[in-house]
């Protein structure tokens, strides 16, 4: 067990709980830490200095920032890759491992890449593997072994990542002192505030600044106590989209993420500043740390970062680092102040810092080099709001340009000042944000959901004055006298950027893509400005003239699970679904519907319908209730056939075509009353037909008095089919079912099994005598069971979709979307008998007239393979002797009734000649010869059974 030899005595602002310990392993070795420790701080307290190997050269890497953005602290935790050890808190039992190190972190074979480093510079992949192209698979196999990103276990149990919506008046992105001050002022202004911070607690850099300890407590307590502030810690605003549509990723201690979406009325951006690394030779050696890393380690986690330190400083932050180190008992070997012209030129040491070389030649023995030489302004969210940041060479960082009204900025991103100036500025920004949010809310309140007498929302029309912040002068310091790494994630050096420019990639955007600088997991937060500076230097230009790259969402890496959220794919079921499930129905997913495919033996189900009687649940059939005097005109336009003469009690089959003449849907419509009709559609077309009807009613400009109401699921629909259908139904209703009184294509409304208002259609899709019952849905199961009970002696049995498909194919009824496609116009579906071109107008008429004049290109035909047992799969091509495609099989099954193979097919018109034989090419390459039939119906072509 390795303990915490580098742990300091208690520090005033530490966040660890020393009363408890947690035990975990790193590369198999056991370690202990305290609750509140990050993985990195706990390991550092135990003396670990090397945490990972770099991406390309497998150089040993140690702590750089000690936070979320640390590129050197990516580890595997259990089966979770790419975990930020500078952020993830330790917990008992964590299995932490270094990524892509073999055979060990201490001795990594791939470190041999450094020996050929001169050949692995920018563009190495493009230049080396571009030819010969045939060798790419071999290259790829080798390159895959160098993928640097941990391991994923595909057997890991799937986690649910709940998404949620939190529409705040004001969202403050960044919970440092400025963010808290802005949030508090906004909340005091009467608005609801969401405050988001990436760290485990609010406070930003004040958390590790002992001088601000009391101010932090006061401000943080006020924020926590405010009822209108919702604080999300360990969270980050990952994107800002039009209208302040924000994505917020909320993390949990175990790394699971959840997405919160917010339509913020005002966004206040207060991310603070990110300390920027300095480029020099050996700047990636373990022991080279940024000042913020040292301050975090000492003040938050009570970890001594080294024993003898050199501090390279260029600002007051570096001076504060020196004080922290002294307090931690670290010997200060030297302070190199860039403001006085003293710079580090190189770091030496094999596995970590052993000495620091100062420009001019001095070498200082040390195991720690701390760098505090500049800041990067994380302007990402501002970029996403359309802002182009402007570089200020005096202050050596970018500042925001003009912002839209719904975005404000505070804190270090806005300017410089002491704690009082910055928080006062932020408070003014928060108050103005509240005022603007209230103004937006007042506009949004003009909605019909508010009562007529609701008072208008109050808004202060006077803008809140926001004081200006100064810009403090800061040395422009990006690289010293030597070259070094500027992208630690991708192992890209300043030299690589110079080379990229020399090769012609002479803009920041081009050089970035060529070298992959800023394209690693940090997405430029540490690297962008150094990369731009390197490009500018190579071009002999300035940073201001070179400009920066574009920051796009997401701001931080986000798990796919968080983006996906909960799976919301609605499932629809009929009122008889529980019965189907209880009686062994094999489910079929048909769009959103779950339907019984069969109950065990679809062939037996077909035979039972042909010989006895069967019932099928057809609830998904679309049903539209049409009312009003304008309905006949509407039907006349929607369908290709005629409707004005349909009598009350009559039913007619109709086909709808789109305006291009392509078959769109089919079904029957019955007339229930003088101005009352019930239309049925295909199951899959229900929503589209409703939309089509409403489209004509609302925008057709014809002024029809008609109402269309979808009633698909108001009815449980049951088709009773078979020679005994009449006998069965007669046992449950007093309705006169004789053929004379209730003939084919008629509709009645009756009481069935004691249930009133059952719509009974005498129609049939199966080719048998059949009645379609549309039962008020709540009584669907009652009628279903009543049919099964009443018909037990008649052999009644349920049948499913598969049996229905066989039955309708035997009868030659086509299915829209299966036997037709997106190009099948009406005459190609054998609808000559239905299309009435003498009508004045109907949807698709001009195209159908044209098709009629020139003749259809293809026709729907019935085929019967000569070899009766051979069933060519659906979608098989029909070909000539020379394998020219002349058609395709659209439906095929073995017919239990005829004991032979039967098909429907789309065939070029010149080949659609009854009696001719065509060749069907099956997917396995066989040829099946089939005869073109006289008519579509393979069974009972005269229709006597259905009309019985």
């Amino acid at each position, binding site marked *: 067990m390795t303990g915490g030899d580098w742990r300091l005595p208690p520090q005033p602002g530490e966040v660890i709980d020393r009363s408890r310990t947690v035990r975990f392993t790193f590369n198999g070795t056991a370690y202990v830490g305290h609750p509140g420790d990050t993985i990195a701080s706990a390991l550092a307290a135990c003396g670990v200095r090397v945490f990972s190997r770099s991406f390309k050269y497998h150089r040993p890497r140690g702590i750089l920032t000690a936070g979320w953005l640390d590129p050197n602290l990516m580890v595997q935790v259990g089966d979770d890759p790419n975990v930020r050890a500078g952020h993830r808190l330790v917990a008992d039992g964590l299995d932490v491992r270094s990524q892509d190190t073999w055979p060990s972190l201490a001795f990594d074979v791939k470190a041999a890449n450094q020996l050929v480093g001169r050949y692995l510079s920018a563009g190495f992949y493009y230049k080396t593997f571009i030819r010969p192209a045939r060798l790419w698979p071999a290259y790829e196999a080798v390159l895959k072994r160098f993928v640097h990103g941990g391991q994923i276990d595909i057997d890991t149990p799937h986690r649910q990542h709940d998404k949620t919506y939190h529409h705040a008046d004001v969202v403050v992105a960044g919970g440092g002192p400025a963010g808290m001050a802005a949030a508090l002022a906004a909340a005091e202004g009467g608005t609801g505030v969401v405050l988001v911070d990436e760290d485990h607690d609010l406070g930003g850099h004040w958390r590790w600044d002992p001088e601000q300890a009391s101010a932090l407590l006061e401000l943080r307590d006020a924020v926590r106590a405010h009822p209108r502030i919702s604080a999300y810690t360990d969270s980050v605003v990952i994107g800002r989209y039009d209208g302040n549509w924000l994505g917020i990723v909320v993390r949990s201690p175990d790394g699971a993420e959840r997405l919160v979406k917010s339509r913020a009325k005002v966004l206040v951006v207060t991310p603070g500043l990110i300390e920027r690394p300095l480029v020099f030779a050996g700047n990636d050696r373990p022991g080279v740390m940024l000042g913020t890393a040292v301050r975090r380690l000492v003040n938050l986690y009570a970890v001594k970062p080294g024993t003898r330190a050199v501090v390279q400083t260029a600002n007051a932050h570096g001076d504060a680092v020196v004080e922290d180190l002294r307090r931690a008992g670290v010997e200060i070997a030297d302070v190199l102040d860039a403001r006085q012209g003293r710079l580090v030129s190189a770091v030496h040491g094999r596995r970590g810092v052993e000495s620091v070389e100062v420009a001019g030649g001095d070498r200082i023995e040390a195991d720690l080099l701390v760098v505090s030489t500049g800041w990067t302004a994380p302007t990402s969210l501002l970029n996403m709001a359309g802002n182009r940041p402007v570089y200020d060479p005096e202050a050596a960082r970018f500042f925001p340009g003009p912002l839209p009204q719904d975005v404000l900025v505070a804190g270090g991103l806005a300017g410089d000042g002491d704690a009082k100036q910055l928080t006062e500025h932020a408070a003014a920004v928060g108050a103005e944000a509240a005022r603007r949010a209230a103004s937006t809310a007042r506009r949004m309140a003009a909605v019909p959901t508010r009562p007529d007498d609701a008072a208008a929302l109050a808004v202060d029309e006077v803008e809140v004055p926001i004081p200006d912040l100064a810009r403090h002068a800061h040395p422009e310091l990006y690289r010293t006298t030597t070259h070094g790494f500027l992208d630690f994630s991708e192992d890209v050096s300043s030299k690589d950027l110079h080379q990229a420019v020399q090769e012609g990639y002479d803009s920041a955007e081009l050089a970035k893509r060529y070298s992959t600088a800023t394209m690693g997991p940090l997405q430029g937060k540490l690297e962008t400005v150094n990369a731009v500076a390197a490009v500018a230097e190579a071009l002999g230009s300035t940073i201001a003239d070179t400009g920066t790259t574009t920051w796009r969402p997401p701001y931080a890496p986000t798990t796919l699970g968080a983006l996906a959220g909960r799976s919301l794919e609605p499932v629809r079921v009929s009122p008889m679904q529980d019965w189907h499930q209880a009686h062994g129905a094999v489910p079929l997913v048909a769009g959103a519907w779950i339907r019984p495919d069969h109950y065990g033996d679809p062939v037996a189900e077909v035979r039972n319908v042909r010989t006895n009687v069967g019932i099928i649940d057809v609830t998904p059939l679309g049903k539209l209730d049409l009312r009003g005097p304008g309905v006949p005109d509407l039907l006349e336009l929607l369908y290709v056939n005629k409707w004005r003469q349909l009598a009350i009690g009559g039913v007619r089959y109709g086909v709808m075509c789109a305006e291009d003449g392509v078959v769109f849907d089919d079904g029957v419509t019955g007339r229930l009353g003088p101005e009352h009709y019930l239309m049925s559609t295909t199951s899959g077309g229900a929503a589209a037909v409703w939309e089509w009807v409403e489209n004509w009613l609302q925008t057709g400009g014809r002024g029809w008095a008609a109402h269309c109401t979808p009633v*698909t699921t108001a009815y449980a629909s049951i088709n009773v089919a078979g020679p005994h259908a009449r006998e069965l139904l007669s046992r449950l209703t007093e309705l006169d079912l004789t053929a004379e009184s209730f003939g084919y294509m008629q509709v009645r409304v009756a009481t069935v099994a004691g249930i009133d208002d059952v719509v009974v259609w005498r129609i049939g899709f199966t080719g048998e005598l059949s009645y379609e019952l549309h039962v008020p849905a709540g009584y669907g199961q009652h009628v279903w069971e009543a049919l099964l009970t009443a018909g037990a002696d008649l052999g009644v049995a349920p049948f499913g979709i598969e049996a229905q498909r066989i039955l309708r194919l035997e009868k030659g009824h086509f299915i829209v979307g299966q036997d037709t496609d997106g190009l099948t116009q009406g005459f190609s579906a054998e609808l000559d008998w239905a299309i009435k071109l003498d009508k004045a107008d109907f949807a698709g008429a001009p195209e159908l007239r044209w098709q009629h004049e020139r003749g259809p290109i293809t026709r729907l035909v019935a085929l019967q393979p000569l070899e009766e047992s051979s069933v060519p799969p659906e979608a098989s091509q029909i070909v000539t002797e020379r394998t020219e495609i002349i058609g395709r099989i659209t439906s095929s099954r073995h017919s239990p009734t005829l004991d032979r193979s039967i098909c429907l097919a789309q065939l070029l018109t010149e080949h659609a000649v009854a009696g001719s034989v065509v060749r069907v090419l099956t997917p396995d390459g066989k040829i099946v010869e089939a005869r073109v039939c006289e008519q579509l119906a393979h069974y009972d072509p005269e229709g006597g059974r259905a009309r019985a």
Partner: protein
Amino acid sequence: MPELGSDQATPARPISPLRPAGPATDDSAGVVIEDLCLLTKLTVRAAAASAVAATVGVRFGRAAWHGEILRVGAGPDEWHLLGPTGSSMLADTRHALVAVPGLVSVLDISHGRGLVRMRGPRVSDLLARLTAFDLDDRFVPDGAAFRTSVASVVTDVVRDDRDGPSYLLHCERSSARWLVDSFLTAGADFGATLVDGAWAQPAQ
């Protein structure tokens, strides 16, 4: 020939598309979902400017109680009337609107719609997991009615407060089970439960 059909009641009891656990026994749950699927529900279609709007007495976007019937302005020319099971709402409404000129449609959609009431201290939090709609009191006060996507299902929502925020949600029947199951799953940490519901107008 007269209109086919009748408005007679039937003796058999209809079945709800939901599967409630039974009557509410514990009101401490963060979210209670009451099954009200068997309520009588009507839809009225007419031009908003017509006399129907005045007769129904509520405009698009708002809902109001008239006795034991909740009248909802569900759409620009569409109203929903929700009332107790077995009431004579259909006949009464048709009678009330018979003299109104112009096309008026009154349909009984009781069987075609699933309906639940959601209440409890975490109800707004649970709704926020499944709908993007901003439920802020300023925009969706008590009595607000709107149609939106909830758990990817087109849903009519009425805010009808009872000792705190409470919402009536209804959707077409075949999706009702999915909708409620989505709430039960997403609200498991709130202790969301589905119970038998009872229809009652708010206390005056």
